[in-house]
């Protein structure tokens, strides 16, 4: 079997924050604190969780928008977390990104033509000026924007159209993996559906792998193959779509799913209402990080941190209640 396209091993990213008088005392935000997963070619893995759980930091670490504190990021068998700039440049072509805000992620001074041509030139993908033109126009066809729009600037487009430009720019580099960081969250319902459908079409057309970072669980269920649920810098559960949505095992995953309001009036639901807020990632709780809000907490949770354990062939859960679950649940 060929190695996975992307492998992340025990990734950690701690951001220093200054505190105390004159900022002399240094503390850390444990944004991502030991996260491991793999993405296969053509696969969609979704990272879900609430604000501050570290899901965007994971995405940025993979893009190497900053250096990581510890761990490994391996793209197609090659480590990229410590790669030299020259090697990194070639690796960057293979991993592209679509950001949440289509207003601030496009340069307002550039024409669409130049926005799309930049990555093609940068990575030397076009053989000639004609080839560049062919590539740029076919990108517009791919994301279903009119070719005439190439000479316009971002402000002339609506939010949904700008997001199409952002996707075209990501595709221009012919990547194998696209990190979608809340890529559809800022869009209106009807436009969101257009972009979700486009992403799905592109995935099957180009065999793209997607790291889909989102807090919208219904969209995630619609798009994804596998899901990793994050809480305070850790993955608490990772499993294929069917397991996550049919038989979530971690108490946090259950609460998260039950909290989503369904568009069905009178639907009988019993949401698990979690108490309180997510604790600060500066001083995460000892033991299980979820123990301060967990409805099923017991003594061991407060002192010992649970590790991810296989509870099924592809389902992994970090919860003391799952201790020995493989034996009992067969």
């Amino acid at each position: 079997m060929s190695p996975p396209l992307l492998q992340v091993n025990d990734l950690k990213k701690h951001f220093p924050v200054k505190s105390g008088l004159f900022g002399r005392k240094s503390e850390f935000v444990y944004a991502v604190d030991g996260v491991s997963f793999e993405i296969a070619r053509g696969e969609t893995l979704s990272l879900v969780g609430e604000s501050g759980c570290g899901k965007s930091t994971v995405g940025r670490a993979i893009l190497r928008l900053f250096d990581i504190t510890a761990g490994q990021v391996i793209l197609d068998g090659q480590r990229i977390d410590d790669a030299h700039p020259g090697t990194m440049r070639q690796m960057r072509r293979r991993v592209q990104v679509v950001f949440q805000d289509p207003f601030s992620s496009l340069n307002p001074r550039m024409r669409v033509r130049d926005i799309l041509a930049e990555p093609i030139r940068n990575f030397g993908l076009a053989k000639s000026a004609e080839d560049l033109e062919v590539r740029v126009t076919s990108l517009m066809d791919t994301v279903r924007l009119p070719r005439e729009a190439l000479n316009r600037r971002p402000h002339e487009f609506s939010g949904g159209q700008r997001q199409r430009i952002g996707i075209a720019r990501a595709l221009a580099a012919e990547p194998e993996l696209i990190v979608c960081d809340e890529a559809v969250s800022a869009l209106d319902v009807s436009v969101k559906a257009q972009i979700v459908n486009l992403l799905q079409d592109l995935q099957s057309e180009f065999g793209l792998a997607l790291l889909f970072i989102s807090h919208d669980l219904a969209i995630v269920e619609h798009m994804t193959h596998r899901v990793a649920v994050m809480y305070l810098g850790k993955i608490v559960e990772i499993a294929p779509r069917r397991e996550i949505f049919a038989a979530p095992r971690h108490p946090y995953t259950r609460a998260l799913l039950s909290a989503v309001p369904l568009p069905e009036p009178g639907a009988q639901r019993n949401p698990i209402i979690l108490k309180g807020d997510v604790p600060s990632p500066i001083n995460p709780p000892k033991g299980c990080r979820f123990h301060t809000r967990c409805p099923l907490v017991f003594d061991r949770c407060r002192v010992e941190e649970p590790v991810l354990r296989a509870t099924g062939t592809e389902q992994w859960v970090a919860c003391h209640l799952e201790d020995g679950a493989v034996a009992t649940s067969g």
Partner: protein
Amino acid sequence: MALLEVDNLQTHFRTPGGINRAVDGVSFHVNEGETLAIVGESGCGKSVTSMSLMRLIPEPPGRIAGAIRFAGRDLLQLSDREMRAIRGNDISMIFQEPMTSLNPVLTVGRQIRETLMIHQGLDKQAAEAHAVEMLTLVGIPEPKRRVREYPHQLSGGMRQRVMIAIALACNPKLLIADEPTTALDVTIQAQILKLMLDLKRRVGAAIILITHDLGVVAEIAERVMVMYAGRKVEEAPVAELFRSPRHPYTQGLLGAVPRLGSSLTGTARRLAEIPGQVPDLRKPITGCVFAGRCALATDLCRQYAPGLEEKGPRHVAACHYAAKGAVAA
């Protein structure tokens, strides 16, 4: 009797590019103790409608016309002074952004006290005691300590609870909630929605809920009004609207949201797209506002704007082609 009756509301803004008809002839009512949801996408005029009800539209460049009758009085005819006595007292509002709608340099307690002292004439001690009570009511732990804290010391969910406490302090008859949970995480949203449902039962205020989230609508609304491009295109009781939407736009909206659990029940399907985009409201629109994006549109739609027609019991839609209600009848 209707608590609030809005008749042909028109809120227009003068802009360099022409007059923006943000709300263009919208009529609706809210009964006492009822929850009406106004849904639609960005720019449909739902927030401008709610700001118009509170007369929070700057004039100029804005201009509000029509009638807004609240408990028998037309709010648009009141003096600024009379309007101030109603805002925060009889009608109050919760905004989307709990980060920016509280004053960062005043304690939470002072901000709750303010409404009570102005509208109810309480003295400082009585208002302080009531503020603590309100914080308890909205489920904030250690309310006696929290009243002395500043907004930055509270989390997003707590701030939204404080906003609700301020809004409910004077026992309003009508509460306008503009995207009250949109900025919140899903587990916090669940807390706030539960709180709103509990409070509604206890306080009995009518609620106008402005949102784009159809899940939230299904959860707490009794009646729904759908807006598109500044007009009302459909209105119905909530179960009826979700079961048999009549306007093609409403049908499109409901088809565009994936349902949680769809991968399990085998109902997963490609999401319905509504092609194109919302029309430019600065240009006069002849005919149906949705004609440019509607699969059923004909020349009739492009020439004559459809009026709101009864399609079923308490169910109206503005469409030439929407079927009349055999389903519900």
